[in-house]
């Protein structure tokens, strides 16, 4: 019983982390029609930057925000200087992000070497709570809380603000949005930066229990991919649902079939492809 509820908490916290990662991925995909294959790199680079700041004694939250801010700059530069040049050539853009992901992976290897880094959980969130005879790590609970808060924030942003209305218009029909006078290209930059920042933030948040190592990018990217195929591109709710499904599957799969846990993650994706190719909450485009 205790094991199961701990598993549930772990699942939810991994789900929360995946949501932070894939919300941006999904928005970028919905708006720009490209899977950003650098998304795992943003996650890893954020985690490395955060880990370096932590090693220098900075506060955990400062490290997380600084890493996100750095990624806003990097994401913005990539979008403005490189992706922009290939506007309308989606395949070229995807391959460009793929190429850049290799460059970033190798740069990280150069700077931080191949040894994994495992930052400590922030002091104020160490330990756990004991209720109903069970022990829950506070940090995991905090991640769930933060993910829910950010999900709410994104929901408000998308559904209630002007920027959000423009993003929705762009996701629905980019040419139409352009006709209506929305500067779609600025929107691309904004969404790309938001996505990069969220991924980096998730990277720092996840680092105490995932640790930071070369190949973290390649581990995370497929997860974002599965979540978005599951939930449907451009749908935040879809990303949320997809993230928690994958979070649950990963932890329970790990507990029951450790050898095949990774493969099990892909099963819902395969099912969705067969039964509902547009994703659980994706709309059929007409």
């Amino acid at each position, binding site marked *: 019983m205790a094991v199961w509820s701990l598993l549930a908490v772990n699942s939810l916290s991994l789900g929360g982390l995946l949501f932070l990662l894939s919300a941006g991925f999904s928005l970028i995909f919905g708006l720009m029609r490209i899977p950003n294959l650098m998304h795992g790199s943003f996650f890893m680079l954020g985690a490395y930057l955060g880990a370096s700041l932590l090693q220098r004694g900075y506060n955990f939250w400062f490290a997380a925000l600084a890493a996100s801010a750095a990624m806003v700059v990097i994401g913005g530069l990539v979008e403005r200087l490189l992706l922009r040049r290939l506007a309308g050539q989606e395949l*070229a853009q995807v391959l460009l992000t*793929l190429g*850049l992901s290799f*460059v970033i992976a190798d740069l990280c290897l150069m700077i931080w070497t191949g040894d994994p880094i495992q930052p400590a959980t922030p002091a104020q969130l160490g330990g756990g709570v004991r209720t109903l005879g069970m022990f829950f790590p506070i940090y995991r609970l905090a991640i769930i809380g933060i993910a829910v808060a950010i999900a709410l924030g994104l929901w408000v942003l998308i559904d209630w603000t002007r920027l959000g209305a423009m993003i929705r218009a762009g996701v629905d029909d980019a040419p139409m949005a352009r006709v209506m006078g929305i500067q779609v290209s600025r929107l691309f930059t904004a969404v790309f930066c938001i996505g990069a920042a969220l991924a980096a933030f998730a990277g720092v948040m996840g680092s105490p229990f995932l640790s930071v190592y070369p190949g973290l990018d390649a581990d995370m990217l497929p997860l974002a991919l599965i979540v978005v195929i599951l939930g449907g591109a451009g749908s935040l709710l879809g990303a949320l649902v997809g993230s928690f499904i994958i979070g649950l599957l990963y932890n329970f799969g790990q507990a029951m079939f450790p050898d095949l846990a990774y493969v099990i993650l892909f099963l819902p994706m395969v099912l969705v492809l067969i039964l509902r190719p547009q994703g659980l909450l994706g709309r059929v485009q007409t």
Partner: protein
Amino acid sequence: MTSNPGRTGFVLLLLAILATLPLWMTSLYYVNIASQILFWAVFALGLNVLVGYGGLVSLGHAGLFGFSGYVAALLMVNGYSHAAALPAAIIGTLLMTAVFAALALRSTGISFLMITLALGQILWGIAYRWADVTRGDNGVNVAGRPSPFGIDLTEPRAFYVAVFITFILCLLSMLALVRSPYGASLRGTRDQPRRMRALGFNVWMIRFIAFLFSGFWTAVAGILFIYYNQFISPQVMALQTSAEALLMVISGGTATLAGPVVGAAIVVIMKNVVSAYVERWNMVLGIIFVLIISFMPEGLVPGTARLWRSMMGRRRAAKMPLGLKVAGEGSR
């Protein structure tokens, strides 16, 4: 196909040089490099069927390539003969390709790329995590190469000849495909899938067959790969390998026969040169990707020709978009 006698002569001369390479090349190091180029070229030609002629960009081919290698390697390690392991690897990979195709061909364009990427990762995950069967990160050692007709392929020159013959067969099959009615149908589904449907073509089936054809040569290349390296590990199935193969296809120029071969030569040579000096192959791979896509999107062969023309001031040839044409949805 334009039959230009000059070009045909040039190609034949090149093939003659390649065929006689073991006779005049004294350094075994270069014989081995040539072997590498040719089996990577088989892989790239196989991928090009889908990418270049079908307009379906796969990022999951490393999974199929490695799958074939693993099936062959694991069977041999478990005591099966070469004669049993090779057909099993090819048939097994074809079945796996059929599964890939059935799932990935639910869509086209960028979604196709995403799905193949995810499918490739599943195979990588199996190789990496299912250590009881695959030996995980330790990889599988393959002892020995076969000796067809009593010729021992452990000798690098003999192995090169075997690879060369396979390469020629692959090239001939591509030549036949490109010129055949089926090849014309495949290119039609790339350019105008909806129109092709209205003309009576079964677009899905045409693509499915192209995927199988591509998977067949990918499987063959995977087998040559494990015989060459005598080793396979999950790294072979990683996204980098798919990206390398794709780089070979687009750097040389897609939807041509020479393109993937030139691309394979460029990538293999570069990889060997770079690795000899620094450890930074992945960075170089990434940078080449970015440079080619940004500045020579149509591929090196046509791209160099364009730059040459514009330098000679003959006419300012416009930069072409990425030499890849992605098959569209076409269902509406």
